[in-house]
C-alpha cells in the first residue's frame, strides 16, 4: 500500500487512473479475452489429439507453404525495398514524387481487391498471365502467385523503414569517405549498408509478420489446392466451416502463432546483433 502511494506520487501529471482503466478495459476486452478463449479452447483438446492434428500432412504442408512464402516474399521485399528506397532518396527523376506517394498504395488498397486484381492480371488469360504463359511460367495456382501477392502487400514496409534513415545520413560522412578515397561501391557496403540494416530488418520482420497471416489477397490468386497452394489461414477458415472443425482450427491457429513468435524473436535477436555490430 505504501508502495502504491509512493508510486502515485511519482506520477506528477494527472490521469493515470483514468487512462489505465480505459486501456485495461480495451486491451482486456479486445485482446486478452479473445486470446484466452483460444487457449482455453485448446486446453480441452487432449495432447495426443493435438499432436495428431499438428502432424496431419495437409496441416503441415499448409504451414510450410505459409511460412516459406512469407519468408521468400519478405526477402524479395528486403532487397527490392532497399533498392527502391535508395533510388527514391538519392536520385531525382521524372515522376519521383508520384512514385514516392504511391509506395503506400498496397497498404491503402483493400487486400481482397488486391487479390482479385492480381489474380485477374496473372490469370492465364490476363494481361501478364498470357505473356508469362508464353515463356512457360505459371503464376496463378502456384506458390509463385502466393509470393507475388505477399510481395505486393508487404512492399511498403522495408521502403518506409529504410527511407528516413537513408535521408538522414549525413552528407559530410559521404564526402569524408570520398575524400579518404572510398569509391561508390565501398561507400555503399561499408557505410550505407551497416547504417540502414537495422531499419531494413525492422521492415523485413513487419513484412514477414504480415505475410504469414495474410488471407484476402492470397486466396484469389493461390488456387487453394491442398498440399500445393493452400495457405494456413485458409485452412483455418475451412476448418472453422467444417462440422466440428473448431479443434483443428484452434490447433492450427496456435501453431501459427508459436512459429510466428519464434521467427519474430529470431528477427529481434538478429536486429540487435546488427545494431551491436554497427557500433
Amino acid at each position, binding site marked *: 500500500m505504501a508502495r502504491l502511494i509512493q508510486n502515485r506520487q*511519482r*506520477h*506528477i*501529471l*494527472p*490521469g493515470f487512473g*483514468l*487512462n489505465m482503466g*480505459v486501456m485495461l478495459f*480495451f486491451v482486456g476486452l*479486445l*485482446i486478452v*479475452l*479473445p*486470446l484466452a*478463449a483460444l487457449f482455453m479452447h485448446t486446453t480441452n483438446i487432449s495432447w495426443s489429439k493435438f499432436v495428431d492434428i499438428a502432424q496431419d500432412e495437409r496441416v503441415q504442408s499448409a504451414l510450410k507453404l505459409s511460412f516459406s512464402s512469407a519468408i521468400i516474399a519478405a526477402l524479395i521485399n528486403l532487397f*527490392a525495398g532497399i*533498392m*527502391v528506397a535508395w533510388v527514391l*532518396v*538519392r*536520385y*531525382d527523376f521524372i515522376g519521383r514524387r508520384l*512514385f514516392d*506517394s*504511391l*509506395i503506400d*498504395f498496397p*497498404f*491503402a*488498397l*483493400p*487486400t*481482397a*481487391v488486391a487479390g*482479385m486484381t*492480381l489474380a485477374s*492480371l496473372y490469370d492465364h488469360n490476363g*494481361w501478364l498471365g498470357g505473356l508469362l504463359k508464353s515463356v512457360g511460367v505459371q503464376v496463378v495456382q502456384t506458390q509463385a502467385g502466393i509470393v507475388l501477392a505477399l510481395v*505486393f502487400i508487404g512492399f511498403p514496409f522495408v521502403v518506409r523503414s529504410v*527511407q*528516413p534513415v537513408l*535521408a538522414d*545520413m549525413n*552528407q559530410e560522412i*559521404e564526402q569524408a569517405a570520398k575524400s579518404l578515397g572510398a569509391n561508390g561501391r565501398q561507400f555503399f557496403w561499408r557505410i550505407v549498408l551497416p547504417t540502414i540494416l537495422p531499419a531494413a530488418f525492422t521492415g523485413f520482420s513487419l513484412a514477414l*509478420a504480415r505475410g504469414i*497471416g*495474410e*488471407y*484476402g489477397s492470397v486466396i484469389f490468386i493461390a488456387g487453394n489446392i491442398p498440399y500445393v497452394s493452400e495457405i*494456413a*489461414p485458409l485452412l483455418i*477458415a475451412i476448418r*472453422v466451416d467444417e462440422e466440428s472443425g*473448431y479443434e483443428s482450427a484452434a490447433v492450427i491457429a496456435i501453431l501459427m*502463432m508459436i512459429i*510466428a*513468435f519464434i521467427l*519474430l524473436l529470431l528477427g529481434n535477436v538478429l536486429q540487435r546483433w546488427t545494431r551491436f555490430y554497427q557500433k
Partner: protein
Amino acid sequence: MGRILLITVTVIFLLFLLIMPIAFIMIEAVGSGLQPYAQAIGNQATLHAILLTILVTAVTIVINIIIGLSGAWLISKFSFRGKAFLTTLIELPFSISPVVVGFLFILLFGYNGWFGKLLDNYGIQIAFAVPGIILVTVFVTFPFIIRELIPLMQEQGKDEEETALSLGARGWSIFWHITLPNIKWGLLYGVVLCLARAMGEFGAVSIISGNIQGETDTLTLHIKNLYDGYYYNEAFAVSSLLLIVALATLLIKSFLEWSFKPKTKYKTKTTLKKT
C-alpha cells in the same frame, strides 16, 4: 551509368507492382460501359454496403482514437510496472492472422461461445451482426493510431505539461491546450492509416459476418459476392470505389507527411542531391 540502370529497374518494378493494378481496376471497372458502371455502384445492395462500411470504419476510428490518446498518454507520461508487457499486447494484433481474429470472436460471441448464450438472453447479437464486424475491425486496427502517437508524445516529453500543471492548469485543459495541439498531425496520420485498413478488412470480417447480403456485407464482402456471382465487371466497378478512396488516403497521407514530418523526409532534396 549505374544510376540510370538503377532508376530504370526501380521504375519498371514499380510500374508492374503498383501502376499496373491501378490501371487494371479502372479499365475493368468501366469494361462494359459507363452506364453499367453507374448501375453497379448505384444499386441498393452496393449503397447498403457503402453505408455499412462507412459506419464500421467511423466507429472503429472513434474507438481507436480513444484507445490511442488514452494509451499514448499512459505509456509516454507515466512509468509503471508491466509497461513493456502492455506495449507488447498493443502490438500483438499486427502478427495475428485476420482469419484467426474472426475465429477468436466466434469463440467468444458465437451462440456456443463464452458469452453467446448470456448475451442472447438479453437479445444482444454480436457474432454475425454489425457489432461483431466492428469488434474484429477494431482488433485488426488496434495498433495503428496508438503506435503513431506514443513516439510523438515521448519525443515531446512532459515538460510543457508539467509547467502548465505547476501554473495551476487542470488535467483536461492541459491535454486539450498543450498535448493535443502538439500531436494533432500525428493523430490525423494515424487516423488515415486506420481508415485505410478498416475500410478494406476482409479475412476477419468474412468469418464473423455470416455474409448476410444487404445486412452484414461490407464493401469487400460485397465485392467477393459479386465475383462469386459471375459479375466480374460489377465487382471491379465497386472495387474502383475503394481504389479511389485508397488513392485519396495516399494523397492526404503525402500531404500530412509533408507538413508533419518535414525534418526527415524531403530534406533529401537539398542535402543529398546528386553526388
